[in-house]
């Protein structure tokens, strides 16, 4: 074995890659290849992935299972080394493994395998002979056939033809069309030979399989497919085929023949070890080198541990290196330098070599070199050699350079200095130390959020994170996000208070009112947040239920979740400082890296969100777009926080299984709780217009009878009528409109012009009815409170009560108490029917109601068949309801009548109150007349008293009626008033009598006046005419009148007046005319020449009077007799001299 220096030179001169043998083996090439492979195997560091892979392969082979394996890795990643190692491992385990080779055809493959096995078995062994024979048979025979054809075609010697063909094959000029099938048969045969020779199996390793595949044409694919499929069907053959290829080949093959790869993968012997080389690879390899080349003692003097770790950190990243090739490259450089420098290779040396290009394999982009070049150009860096060194040191550790490492190189203080100065911009702190941000896998932030993060990191302390402030932050960010703002009655939430309220026990509480679910609108959910369980306040009735969140530290006793159904409380404990334990969303991971070593926990994220939101607007020159981006990050943090904090695991111990996280999980919890505490609740609030719908429904109920409202009978009729019941002007669209009543009204028929609906009760009515039945005599407010316990809001209960009332299931008394409508016995029903009949009869006696008369005629109180109790009850109750509904009408009628009576009484009383005249003629008749007058006055007084009392009674009655409670029967009122009507009629009649008496009396007074006038006129006429006839007639009248009045008095007042008024008035008229005539005559006869006009006027007047009275003036003047027949007409002519000449003519007056 070479000693240390020589060993290093071996390393220094090591070829970058291991060459694979190509094609068939000869005795020489076998030996050389074996030596080469063995040497390689000495320094091979087997990654554990490859180790377990080899073990799996070996296990299968030893269990006699045909196996196909594939190793994929980029160029320089050690595929060949792995193949060689596998060759060695399998050989050590009695599996004959052909030396790994590459080839470009089936023929070549066959040759390589055959020759490989031959040499392994021993060229002269029986097994080797069999191998040769099999080769000839399966793969070369086709060459013989070709030779035979050539012999015929070209007329050449057969042996010559065959030699020519074989030579071409050997040289690669000719590829016999050997197929996958031939190869399969060949493999099978070989396996038998190998097993016969004492091995446990056969493994063939074809390296650089892309050589074989070439440009992956159709023939190649077919052969390969045949081979793979064929091998799989030979399941119990201890035969293995291992191929290696690079990723490009794999990708191409995947596209062209993905099924083949898929088949290969099924055996779980498919290995891509691009990422198999982990951080430790470099150290392990160097250790192996040191062991094999015996420089273990000087190991660390050549390259120290930190540098080996640095190499490992770089080479595990294929964006920064070419994997194991880079490792080898670096080791070669180390070996080369040590011999010159004789000092340890450091991380700074490594970076210098990247910069100088002495490390050739530094990844496709030379990322480290370009980054370090850029950074070292900064003034701040390049002006200080210490900073330069420190930066290079940091660059060598993508996972972070610790202070200890930096101290070891005397750069500890500078590291700290750089960390403070460049943190956030260039450097970041990782768990292992300070690192360059640009070497991290996550991208550099593209916005100004990093400024905020830097400030946050600098000022935040753990004590600050988990404080009582966490409660406020939790409320603001974790909870408020769950309750979106109010939008309408069915969506969104409003807060009872603008801020959370501090309770006496030290917790913070808020009530949200609103809706998540259309089936539970306007719920009140209390949220209480505290730090300790004993801070939880007592339960209240002012909410539907509450969530209590106890925010705890990990060090405190955990609060197990509790669902206290009785107190409607859900208690959840949350560990606020527990790290999330899962990766953050990709676009937030840079934040996580940025804030290291602070671990992301709910408390940290809450304080961070708050900090971001408060600081973002304050950043200098922040654009609107940047601000929006920062807000987007903040929201994403918030959403992630909520999704982590609230998940199924929070409720699992309660046996409650949810499927979502975050806001959705809490909503599920809320739904679960609501269903638990209000299992029978069904809302009336179906839309924003729910109250309008309820009112429409109520109107519809009012227009229907009890059987219909209870759903016992359908509401049937013309479609337009039915639609009108629900307030629709026409029935078009009614079929869909009815759905808004949500099965409170169900359309049963809607055909042609006819339709039928059936009313149905709401489930809430049953709830309210039960409350009323159980609690008895509840007022509205108390009912609301009770119904609320079942989930019904007061406004809903209000409508439910209306429905129940209209369906007749409950009643409301005059004190406002609700009670269940009674279940009536037959006797009660009969009584109700009878009472209704009586009341109805009284009503119709006042006002005609045809339907009421019809109901009366049905004589429901006498119905015998009560078997159909419900229907009969309904009819009777309907009758009762009708009667009750008519009470106001009747009362109004009564009031109207009473009013009329009162008016009449007043009117007539007024007449009685007028003065009754007396007779003061001085004649005999005065006494009689005035006697009557006194009697009339007395009578009037009595009547007036009576009338006044009656009016008072009527007024009192009217007052009573205006306040009358119509919930009870009004039979007595009707009867009482009917009696009053009779009394009033009588009183009015009596008043009328007295009034007529007074009128008559007045006429008598006038008559007396007439008698007096007659007497006076007689005196006046005496000088002019013979008044004896007048006197005689006058005296006769007077005497008979006196006699009549004396005997019969006022009793015959009216009859006497009729009898004598004619006579008196006739006498009066005649005397009056005579007076007039006499006056005129007197004037004329007095010789006075009257003025022509006045004469004429007088004459005309007289003529008119005469003509009216049929009086002949002549007779008046001359005879004094004025019998009407004789006093017909009179001619009064006006002479030319102005004298009026009266010419009496007989017969009828001239016209």
């Amino acid at each position, binding site marked *: 074995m070479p000693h240390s220096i020589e060993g290093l030179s071996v390393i220094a001169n090591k070829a970058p890659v291991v060459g694979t043998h190509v094609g068939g083996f000869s005795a020489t090439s076998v030996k050389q290849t074996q030596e080469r492979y063995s040497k390689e195997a000495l320094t091979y560091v087997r990654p554990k992935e490859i180790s377990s892979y080899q073990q799996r392969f070996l296990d299968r082979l030893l269990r006699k299972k045909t196996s196909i394996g594939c190793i994929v890795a980029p160029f320089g990643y050690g595929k060949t080394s792995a193949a060689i190692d596998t060759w060695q491992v399998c050989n050590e385990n009695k599996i004959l493994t052909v030396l790994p080779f590459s080839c470009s055809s089936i023929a070549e493959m066959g040759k390589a395998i055959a020759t490989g096995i031959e040499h392994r078995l021993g060229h002269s062994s029986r097994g080797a002979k069999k191998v040769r024979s099999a080769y000839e048979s399966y793969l070369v025979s086709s060459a013989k056939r070709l030779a035979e054809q050539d012999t015929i075609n070209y007329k050449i010697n057969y042996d010559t033809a065959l030699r020519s063909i074989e030579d071409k094959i050997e040289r690669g000029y000719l590829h016999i069309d050997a197929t996958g099938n031939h190869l399969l048969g060949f493999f099978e045969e070989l396996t038998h030979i190998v097993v016969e020779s004492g091995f446990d199996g056969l493994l063939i390793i074809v390296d650089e399989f892309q050589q074989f595949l070439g440009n992956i044409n159709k023939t190649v694919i077919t052969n390969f497919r045949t081979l793979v499929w064929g091998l799989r069907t030979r399941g119990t053959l201890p035969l293995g085929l291992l191929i290696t290829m690079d990723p490009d080949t794999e*990708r191409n093959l995947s596209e062209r023949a993905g099924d083949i790869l898929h088949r290969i993968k099924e055996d779980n012997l498919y290995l891509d070890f691009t990422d198999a080389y982990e951080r430790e690879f470099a150290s392990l390899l160097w250790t192996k080198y040191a062991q094999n080349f015996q420089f273990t003692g000087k190991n660390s003097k050549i390259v120290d541990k930190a540098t080996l770790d640095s190499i490992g950190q770089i080479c595990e990243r294929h964006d920064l290196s070419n994997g194991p090739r880079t490792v080898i490259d670096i080791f070669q450089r180390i070996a080369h330098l040590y011999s010159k420098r004789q000092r340890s290779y450091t991380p700074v040396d490594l970076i210098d070599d990247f910069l100088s290009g002495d490390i050739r394999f530094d990844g496709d982009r030379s990322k480290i070199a370009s980054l370090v070049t850029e950074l070292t150009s900064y003034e701040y860096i390049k002006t200080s050699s210490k900073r330069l060194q420190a930066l290079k040191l940091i660059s060598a550790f993508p996972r972070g350079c610790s202070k200890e490492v930096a101290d070891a190189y005397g750069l500890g203080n500078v590291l700290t200095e750089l960390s403070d100065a460049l943190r956030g911009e260039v450097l970041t702190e990782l768990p292992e130390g300070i690192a360059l941000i640009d070497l991290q896998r996550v991208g550099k932030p593209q916005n100004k959020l990093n400024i905020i993060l830097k400030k946050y990191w600098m000022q935040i302390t753990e004590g600050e994170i988990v404080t009582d402030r966490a409660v406020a932050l939790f409320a603001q960010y974790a909870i408020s996000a769950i309750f979106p703002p109010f939008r309408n009655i069915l969506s969104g939430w409003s807060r009872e208070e603008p801020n959370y309220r501090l309770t006496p026990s030290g917790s913070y509480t808020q009530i949200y009112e609103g809706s998540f679910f259309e089936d539970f609108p306007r719920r009140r959910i209390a949220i209480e947040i505290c730090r300790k369980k004993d801070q939880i306040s007592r339960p209240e009735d002012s909410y539907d239920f509450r969530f209590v969140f106890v925010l705890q530290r990990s060090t405190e006793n955990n609060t197990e979740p509790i669902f206290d159904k009785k107190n409607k409380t859900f208690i959840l404990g949350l560990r606020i400082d527990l790290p999330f334990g899962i990766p953050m969303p990709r676009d937030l991971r840079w934040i996580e890296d940025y804030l290291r070593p602070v671990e992301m926990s709910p408390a940290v994220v809450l304080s961070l969100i708050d900090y971001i939101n408060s600081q973002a607007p304050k950043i200098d020159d922040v654009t609107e777009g940047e601000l929006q981006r920062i807000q987007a990050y903040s929201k994403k943090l918030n959403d992630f926080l909520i999704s982590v904090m609230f998940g199924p695991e929070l409720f699992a111990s309660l046996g409650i299984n949810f499927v979502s996280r975050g806001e959705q999980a809490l909503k599920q919890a809320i739904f679960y709780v609501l269903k638990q505490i209000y299992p029978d609740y069904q809302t009336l609030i179906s839309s924003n217009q729910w109250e309008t719908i309820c009112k429409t429904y109520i109107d519809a109920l009012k227009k229907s009878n009890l059987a219909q409202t209870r759903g016992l009978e359908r509401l049937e009729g013309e479609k337009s009528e039915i639609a009108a019941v629900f307030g629709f002007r026409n029935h078009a669209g009614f079929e869909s409109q009815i759905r808004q009543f949500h099965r409170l009204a169900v359309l049963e028929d809607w055909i042609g012009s006819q339709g039928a609906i059936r009313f149905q009760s709401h489930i809430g009515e049953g709830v309210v009815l039960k409350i009323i039945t159980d609690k008895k005599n509840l007022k509205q407010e108390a009912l609301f409170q009770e119904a609320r316990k079942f989930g019904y809001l007061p406004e809903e209960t209000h409508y439910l009560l209306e429905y129940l009332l209209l369906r007749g299931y409950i009643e409301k008394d005059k004190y406002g108490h609700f009670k269940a409508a009674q279940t009536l016995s037959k006797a009660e029903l009969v009584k109700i029917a009878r009472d209704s009949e009586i009341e109805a009869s009284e009503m119709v006696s006042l006002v005609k109601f045809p339907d009421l008369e019809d109901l009366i005629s049905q004589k429901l109180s006498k119905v015998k068949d009560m078997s159909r109790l419900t229907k009969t009850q309904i009819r009777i109750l309907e009758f009762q309801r009708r009667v009750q509904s008519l009470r106001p009408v009747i009362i109004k009628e009564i009031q109207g009548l009473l009013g009329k009576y009162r008016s009449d009484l007043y009117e007539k009383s007024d007449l009685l109150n007028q003065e009754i005249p007396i007779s003061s003629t001085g004649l005999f008749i005065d006494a009689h007349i005035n006697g009557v007058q006194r009697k009339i006055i007395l009578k009037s007084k009595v009547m007036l008293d009576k009338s006044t009392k009656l009016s008072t009674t009527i007024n009192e009655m009217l007052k009573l009626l205006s306040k009358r409670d119509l919930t009870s029967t009004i039979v007595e009122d009707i009867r009482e008033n009917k009696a009053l009507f009779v009394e009033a009629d009588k009183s009015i009649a009596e008043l009328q009598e007295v009034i007529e008496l007074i009128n008559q009396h007045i006429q008598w007074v006038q008559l007396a006046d007439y008698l007096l006038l007659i007497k006076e006129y007689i005196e006046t006429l005496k000088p002019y005419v013979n008044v004896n006839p007048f006197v005689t007639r006058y005296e006769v009248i007077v005497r008979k009148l006196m006699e009549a009045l004396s005997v019969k008095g006022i009793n015959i007042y009216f009859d006497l007046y009729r009898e004598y008024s004619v006579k008196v008035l006739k006498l009066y008229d005649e005397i009056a005319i005579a007076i007039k005539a006499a006056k005129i005559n007197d004037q004329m006869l007095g010789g006075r020449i009257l003025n022509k006009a006045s004469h004429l006027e007088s004459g005309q007047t007289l003529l008119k009077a005469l003509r009216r009275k049929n009086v002949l003036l002549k007779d008046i003047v001359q005879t004094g007799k004025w019998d009407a027949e004789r006093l017909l007409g009179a001619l009064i002519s006006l002479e030319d001299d102005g004298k009026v000449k009266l010419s009496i003519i007989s017969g009828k007056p001239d016209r």
Partner: protein
Amino acid sequence: MLKPTSFHVRHDLQPVLTYELLNLFLSKPEGQTQEELEHSANIYGFRLRERKDYSKLIKSLMELDVLREEDDRFLLTDKGEIISRLIIYQRDLLAEFIHFLYYSSFDLEPNKRFSWSYRTVCDALWLSAPSVINRDSLVNHVTREAVTIFEENGISFSASSVSGVINWLVELIPNCVVVHGTEQQFVRREYCSIELFTLALNHEYRRKSAVDLAYVTIDSSFREEICRLCLINPDKFSEMLSLAEASFNCVDVRRERGDKISMSKFEWNSLEN
């Protein structure tokens, strides 16, 4: 080729219902019948309860290769499982994933014409951005394009189909649909989720990589295709590419002699690592 689907993009498949469905499916890996889904939705108070029938939703998700049917039960595909797991903690990604599936399905399966419609609407909006979303105009555009490309007249595509597209666009974060007064306006985004961008890279890479090419050139057409799919501004491509590169090992970009990309090892489950 399978029988072509309709051009109609079902508006029934709304984001909130999809989220709930995927939650339910994820909770029962053995699959569920419609009845079982309804039962679960009722237990959890899901918005799904408002629907009587989930067949259209399920059919849409099957067409997007999120669900499959087995023995009369519906269950998540591998892709569907990955999406469902990711959205549990990042609900905002759901719209991104569904948008991607809608947009890209036509390239993989040309019988999925609803995907063509979806993409045509998105492309029209992206090309004309910022612009008011005029549904009638979009209907006309799709209808005309269908005549040109498929020689089909009278396709089943209406304003409700456009709604089926907009349903998802409005859910994307950051927004590409903003409200101005009573109008909705489409704007290009300044960024998108890394996941969507990476899916877009992979999709475009697969379309463009030929047999012998391991790397695809990132030329202007490549950039534009990605930006259209992701609905972002083209000048944000580089930034997003850097982020994707830093987030996923399988995003391999080479920058010598022009930018080239390889998405060799990308699979859907890479999104979960």
